């Protein structure tokens, strides 16, 4: 019982970590928290669904097209809506992403309304059983992708030129521009990358959660919980925060009450932010007076 709960907690937590990673990339590069990231997740899954059912494309082609479409959408969002407000107050940028999330949800609702659509899994092998424990292949794929992505982005941000670029561009856009970095283009690309990561998460997770317009909002709040738990802008923190969230959710659902699963993320966010606002791994913000 305990082992199975922990195992399904890890599976569930990998989903949160995967969504949180996409937001962390954007936050690290641009210092913007994208409240519309859940809708990137939802759109990615819906685009793939469209390619699968309207065009009849094979799964991998559809998935690839979905990721590319969302990469493009991310770049468009940055170019059309975010860049004109660059340098403006943070509060306005946050409001813009809030507005965007409602816009995308509304668009999805026009087409799908109250429908809940099924999504085929990546592979449909029977679940793996080890003793009493059950693992589905979809869980393994999600966890594997999550680990792969976190390693890639940790290497990129900590060991390559891209990381220094991101540091420079987010710390001081003006200074970065002065030393010859094309900051707007860099921001645009990172928006694209973040949206594409949202799409990857959406495509992998949709077979489990099913497709509906509010699926992004549901997962976003848990991804937020994962990020706050681990510390904003920290890759390893996002992963460990996500896994912790998943495990704690499953344990509280298994041993206390299933209705607690819904609010566990909320309580976690509030407690963590009040007790240790920087999260488990983050460093406290230092303000210069």
């Amino acid at each position, binding site marked *: 019982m305990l082992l199975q709960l922990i195992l399904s907690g890890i599976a569930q937590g990998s989903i949160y970590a995967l969504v949180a990673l996409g937001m962390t990339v954007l936050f690290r590069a641009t210092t913007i928290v994208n409240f519309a990231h859940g809708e990137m997740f939802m759109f990615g899954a819906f685009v793939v669904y469209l390619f699968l059912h309207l065009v009849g494309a094979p799964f991998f082609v559809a998935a690839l097209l979905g990721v590319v479409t969302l990469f493009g959408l991310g770049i468009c969002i940055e170019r059309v809506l975010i860049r004109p407000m660059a340098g403006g107050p943070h509060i306005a940028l*946050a*409001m813009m992403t809030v507005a*965007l999330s409602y816009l995308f949800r509304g668009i999805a609702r*026009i087409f799908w309304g109250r429908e809940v659509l099924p999504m085929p899994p990546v592979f449909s092998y029977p679940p793996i059983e080890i003793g009493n424990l059950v693992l589905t292949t979809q869980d393994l794929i999600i966890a594997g992708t999550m680990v792969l992505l976190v390693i890639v982005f940790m290497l990129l941000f900590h060991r390559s030129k891209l990381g220094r670029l991101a540091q420079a561009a987010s710390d001081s856009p003006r200074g970065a521009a002065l030393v010859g970095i094309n900051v707007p283009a860099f921001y645009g690309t990172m928006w694209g990358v973040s949206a594409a990561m949202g799409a990857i998460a959406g495509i992998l997770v949709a077979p489990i959660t099913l497709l509906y317009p509010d699926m992004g*909002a549901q997962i976003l709040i848990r991804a937020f919980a994962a990020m706050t738990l681990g510390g904003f802008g920290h890759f390893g923190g996002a992963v460990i925060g996500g896994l912790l969230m998943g495990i704690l959710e499953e344990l509280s659902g298994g041993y206390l009450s299933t209705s607690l699963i819904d*609010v566990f993320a909320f309580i976690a966010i509030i407690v963590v*932010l009040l007790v240790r606002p920087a999260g488990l791994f983050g460093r406290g913000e230092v303000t210069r007076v």
Partner: protein
Amino acid sequence: MSDAIGSTSIETGKRVGLRTAMIATMALGALLALPLLMNDYQQYIVNLTLIYCLVSVGFNIVLGYLGQLAFANAALFGIGAYSTGILMQQLDVPFGFALPSSVLIAAVVGTLIGLPALRLKRYYLAIVTLVLGELLRWTYIHGGDITRGSSGLPISTPKLFNFPIESEAQKYYVFLFVTVLILWATRNLLRSRIGRAWVAIRENELAAASLGIWPAIYKIAAFTWSGAVVGAAGALFAILLGRIEPESFNLNQLLLHFTFVMIGGLGNMIGSIIGAVILTAAPEILRNFPGFEEIVFSLLLIGVLLFMPRGIGGILVAYFPRLRERLFRD
């Protein structure tokens, strides 16, 4: 320049005061006569407009005047509504007593929401307040017999001094009295030392602190007052609908409040009222098209953010300097 303006207003101060008083009296007379021209449905929309004026002004105090990214407005609205509902239905408290009590409860909850704002900034505060709203909605759904869950809590006809408030026109007069009273108090508060302190903290917290303004106390005060104003709106909302459901206080309700404030202009009380008056009828019209409500409101928000960051209030001020928010008394 300011000297010139100052001296003219001193010279004509009395006459301007008289004219303002006349305009105010005429406006009040027109508002009092309004139910004569309305059918029940139109009157219902007008009543809803009054409620949303309160909501939008209350939200603007925290979002616009204090400049804190706190999104707990729909939650406070729900607290006001559910307090009234529970007090009247479960505890048999008369309406005349339930209304001020709900305002008080919402003010206390507002204060509690303000506490994290002392430690948290920007996104962190936004996330915590969003989450608090969802947590409260979960409580309403799982509240058992107290909140009657997702089917909603019905509220019987309220009585004021043994006089039942039944028709939309009767509700209108009660709502009008409460709304005008609270808005007038808020206007005076914003022009007082407290209102000026809020703006000072918004502009630069450190500078404000160095002037002897204690940011923590004034921040809490803003959250308390905002809670009271929005809570009063929630209480009236419960009376207007006669049944309160958890889904009335979801993220879409928050989007509505947010759009009122942004369309009207951050830190502009008259703008907030204008925003609420213009947009209240919109959800009624859009209700039958799923998704359109979200699209219309989010596009409005995006348009405002990109093209008129100061909102309608800001544009009006540019043309009619008399409407400028004066944070001081003449």
